[in-house]
């Protein structure tokens, strides 16, 4: 908390680093209202992503050409990745079909919402707001517990927390660890991994942008220009790296979802 607050301590004419609250723009409805009181940019982008993905997938799938065009091929590639690389490889040939819609929707939703941060003017990964990450991870959390109970009945909690082959005395230690790691830590890491990587990546890009801007316009010294150029090159590299992280995290989140589902529907371990 102190570390996050520190930049405010140096208020004055000098360089001001961007803060987390800079991600919280005033709301749109009502116009200019304080963040958190109405309908904001982040929510607009979430809904925009839903419309975009739905349009894209439906348009790509509707063609149904045996030899796909470029557009259909792109749709099939993304769908095929979620279906085969994530779903079939993790869940097995018999089970994966039921979970294909969830994995496809998750992959596309997170991918597009992450990439919102790389698109000029939109320029905010909507997943860098923790609410979105909580919502998705929470949904998955409820879903895999539901699947576990559906598969094993109430015995599922025993299956999930009591590992077989552990000597009885150790169970006193192992069971609490399993409960904490499975039912408490898992949803937290699932959501925070996505949110934190998006937030930090966005902050780094914003920081380089702010620093470059300061070097060019705020400093008023000749050496601000070469230094600013140098920061620009570094910022560009960070921007490209951030795009890679955005794609990677969409994959990681979806893959972990498949892993959790697999753990719930599998036989006792």
């Amino acid at each position: 908390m102190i570390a996050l607050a520190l930049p405010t301590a140096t208020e004055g004419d000098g360089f001001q680093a961007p803060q987390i609250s800079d991600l919280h723009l005033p709301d749109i409805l009502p116009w200019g209202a304080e963040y958190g009181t109405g309908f904001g940019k982040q929510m607009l982008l979430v809904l925009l992503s839903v419309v975009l993905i739905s349009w894209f997938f439906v348009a790509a799938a509707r063609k149904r050409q045996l030899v796909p065009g470029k557009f259909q091929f792109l749709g099939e590639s993304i769908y095929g990745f979620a279906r085969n690389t994530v779903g079939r490889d993790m869940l097995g040939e018999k089970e994966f079909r039921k979970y294909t819609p969830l994995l496809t929707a998750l992959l596309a939703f997170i991918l597009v919402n992450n990439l919102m941060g790389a698109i000029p003017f939109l320029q905010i990964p909507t997943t860098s707001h923790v609410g979105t990450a909580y919502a998705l991870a929470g949904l998955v959390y409820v879903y895999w517990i539901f699947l576990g109970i559906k598969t094993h009945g109430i015995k599922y909690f025993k299956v999930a927390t009591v590992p077989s082959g552990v000597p009885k005395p150790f169970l006193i230690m192992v069971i609490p660890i399993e409960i904490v790691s499975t039912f408490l830590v898992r949803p937290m890491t699932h959501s925070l991994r996505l949110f934190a990587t998006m937030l930090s990546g966005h902050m780094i890009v914003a920081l380089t942008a702010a620093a470059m801007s300061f070097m060019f316009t705020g400093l008023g010294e000749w050496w601000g220009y070469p230094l600013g150029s140098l920061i620009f090159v570094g910022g560009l590299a960070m921007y490209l790296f951030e795009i890679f992280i955005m794609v990677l995290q969409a994959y990681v989140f979806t893959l972990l979802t498949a892993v959790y589902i697999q753990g719930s529907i599998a036989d006792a371990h």
Partner: protein
Amino acid sequence: MDNAVILASAEGANPLMPNWWEVLVTLVGFLILLFIVSKFVVPMFEKTFEERHAAIEGGIEKAAAAQAEADAALEEYKQQLSDARTEANRIREEARSEGAEILAELKAKAASESARITEQAQVAIASERSAAQASLRTEVGTLATQLAGKIVGEALDDDARSARVVDRFLSDLESQQAGAAK
């Protein structure tokens, strides 16, 4: 700088506290997307995949059928060719044997013809010879009788007797000839 003020200003931006409206919007938005994906997108893609799979499978089947057909045609053609060869051989063989038969027949015919002609000739010769013998016998008898009559001066008009004499003479002649031939 007052620490409390710093903390207070940071409080509003605690990154771990969600904006509940955003949670709600994300949930609703994602569920709508999930509905569209599972209701329309996945079935359509799956159908396309299946059709593509069937098309590829069908293409392979078609190619296999065409291959089998070609093989059958080739087999039939080969069969026909060998049939034709056998037929040709058979015909050639038949012609050869027929020719041999005809030749043999002709030879036999020629041989029998020649035999027949020889026989006829012999018969003709024999009959002519016996006719000549008969006429000679009469004429020689007459001439000899006349000659003997002239020589003896006595007409041997008694035909019966002269005939007897001639016959005896001739049979003596014949027995002489037969003795000489031995």
